[in-house]
């Protein structure tokens, strides 16, 4: 049994490493993807480009504008008196918001009246718009508080102290609330899944296309020997990828790593059981490499969306939450994020390990029974 497995394993490594495209998929792609995703996948909203339309032009109006542009959240793209020009900037997506202050702002304010200040937000990207509105509300509230205290002081002639609640937020595991710290470990899991799925399904389907599988099927090899020999190299490649991409995450992006690397590798091992099993299953239902590729992506995108990689599972409709239970990426994300950011151990993560093991055995078992030595 071992001789045959080793024979296939050796051949598989040779085939894969001799193919320049495959070498790129295995060695180059995960690192490049991590770098790209690490920069691109971020939900942090900073430096919102703001068009300022100040029709008042008084010290009070300029002070309000300065509060906006002085914060890290807003950059003044332009100061203009022209409403239409500002609107065109939003239309062309050069500006994300317009801050408009009407004439008489200072006068009305001093007269003790509530003065409307308009913030027009490009709502096409609802997520960014919500952040912009929240930031603007915070800035305005701070300005109001200061203004009120200043007015009271001016009228009473002495400084006033008022009691107030001071909220002290402290984010655990990710003190600066860097979304990159949350997403980069997820990207590692996602890339391992993509590479192992593709390599497995393609490697077997390529043999179908070339006709070489027919020659193997007439030998007395047992299906389990063939499958183990085929999958083992891709499991090894999966581990190598984990180490490579983790190195990029730690050394380049300085993502905190607080847990145990051994535990992470254990999680990856169980995760690979599922992804290799799915890859194997895809290879049994595909005749050509194109079909295998299509089927892989047909599985991969929902698996990514249902996993909680970007969208929290708790926000999904209940049906989809149930569906996400059969998504191996869901469990792997909890493990990898837990190990990276929270530094939690097996005592916390064992349910995720158990789920991955059950899923992996089920998928692999099913794929093996689907795999026949007949054409």
């Amino acid at each position, binding site marked *: 049994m071992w001789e045959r497995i080793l024979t296939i394993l050796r051949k598989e490594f040779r085939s894969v490493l001799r193919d320049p495209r495959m070498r790129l998929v295995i060695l180059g792609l995960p690192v490049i993807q991590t770098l790209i995703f690490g920069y691109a996948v971020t939900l942090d909203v900073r430096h919102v480009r703001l068009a300022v339309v100040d029709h008042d032009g008084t010290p009070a109006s300029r002070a309000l504008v300065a509060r906006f542009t002085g914060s890290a959240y807003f950059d003044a793209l332009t100061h203009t008196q022209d409403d239409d020009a500002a609107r065109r900037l939003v239309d062309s997506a050069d500006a994300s918001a317009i801050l408009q202050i009407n004439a008489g702002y200072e006068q009305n304010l001093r007269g003790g009246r509530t003065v409307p200040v308009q913030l027009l937000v490009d709502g096409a990207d609802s997520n960014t718009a919500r952040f912009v509105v929240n930031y603007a509300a915070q800035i305005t509230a701070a300005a109001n508080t200061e203004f009120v205290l200043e007015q009271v002081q001016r009228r009473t002639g002495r400084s006033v102290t008022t009691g107030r609640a001071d909220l002290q937020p402290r984010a655990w595991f990710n003190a600066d609330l860097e979304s990159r710290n949350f997403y980069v470990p997820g990207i590692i899991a996602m890339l391992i899944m993509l590479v192992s799925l593709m390599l497995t399904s393609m490697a077997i389907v390529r043999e179908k296309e*070339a006709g*070489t599988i027919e*020659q193997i099927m007439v*030998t007395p090899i047992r299906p389990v020997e063939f499958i183990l020999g085929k999958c083992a190299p891709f499991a090894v490649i999966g581990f190598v990828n984990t180490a490579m991409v983790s190195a990029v995450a730690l050394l380049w992006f300085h993502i905190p790593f607080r847990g145990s690397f051994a535990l992470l590798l254990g999680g990856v091992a169980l995760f690979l059981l599922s992804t290799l099993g799915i890859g194997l299953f895809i290879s049994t239902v595909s005749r050509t490499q194109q079909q295998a590729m299509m089927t892989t992506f047909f599985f991969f995108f929902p698996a990514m969306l249902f996993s909680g990689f970007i969208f929290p599972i708790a926000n999904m409709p209940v049906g989809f939450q149930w569906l996400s239970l059969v998504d191996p990426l869901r469990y792997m994300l909890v493990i990898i994020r837990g190990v990276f950011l929270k530094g939690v151990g097996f005592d916390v993560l064992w349910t995720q390990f158990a789920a991955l093991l059950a899923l992996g055995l089920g998928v692999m078992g099913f794929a093996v029974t689907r795999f026949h030595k007949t054409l």
Partner: protein
Amino acid sequence: MPAASTAEIVVEVQNLEKHFGAFKAVAGVSFAVRRGEIFGFLGPNGAGKSTTIRMLCGLLAPTAGSGRVAGFDIVRETEQIKTRIGYMSQKFSLYDELTVEENIDFYSGIYRLPREKKAARKDWVLTMAGLQAHRRTRTSTLSGGWKQRLALGCAVLHEPPILFLDEPTSGVDPISRRQFWDLIYTLSGQGVTVFVTTHYMEESEYCDRLGIVYRGELIASGTPRALKTEHMAEAVLELDCAQPNEAMAVLERLPEVKEVAVFGKGLHVVAADPAAAEPAIRAALAAGGFRLDRLERIVPTLEDVFVSLIEARDRTAGAQQEFSR
């Protein structure tokens, strides 16, 4: 089938069928192959040759019928069969990205050759295929003839007593084809039973015994000589004349002539009664003004037999179809 031989039968099938949906790729064939024999399966593309060979190798499960290879059942004991056969598919099926030597090592690992035998078998394959100087060459860069001999070598690494070859020489030049057949004869001489499919007429002449398959059925079998003499009730006349294409149209109208076919520069005429046909042909050609250079009765070639059998089969199939309407 001559009953003289008492050699052991190593491949036999009864009423073997394979359907793909409504299409009957193999529609009930029965035959037997004796030990050490070279048995050819001759037929046009799509006749069911490859499907039959795949069922014998345990790659496809038959829809109906039964068979035994090396004494094992082709439905239930496929894995036992697989240790005793070598198989070469019509498509080259070694790994292009591996070297010659790596391909040989791969199959000797898969067949679990004993360690002490591996080197000897590898040398044998390299010598047999003439690839000693190319052991580290990528297989993809080998010529067709070399690839085919290497594939044969890998298929017989484990010294199987039965060898299945599915159109082994398609797409190979005539010299390589001849060399390949020399190898087959060598193996056959060592007692290996060879089952080979082909659609080359001249190649089928090399076989000890032939089965002619057409549309999933075995329509005749026997030695090439027996097929040519016994399975052709009609006589074949060969003639050389001026304007053979025009002459053919004239001859086809003669009641004494059953079929006319172009053959090389001349024509082959099939006639039930050659004694009556010969004067009729001479008269018709003379009347039409065609110069006749030669007219003689010949031993039919396998191609004549093949064409005649197939046309006879099509006639009965057509008649049945009309009847069933």
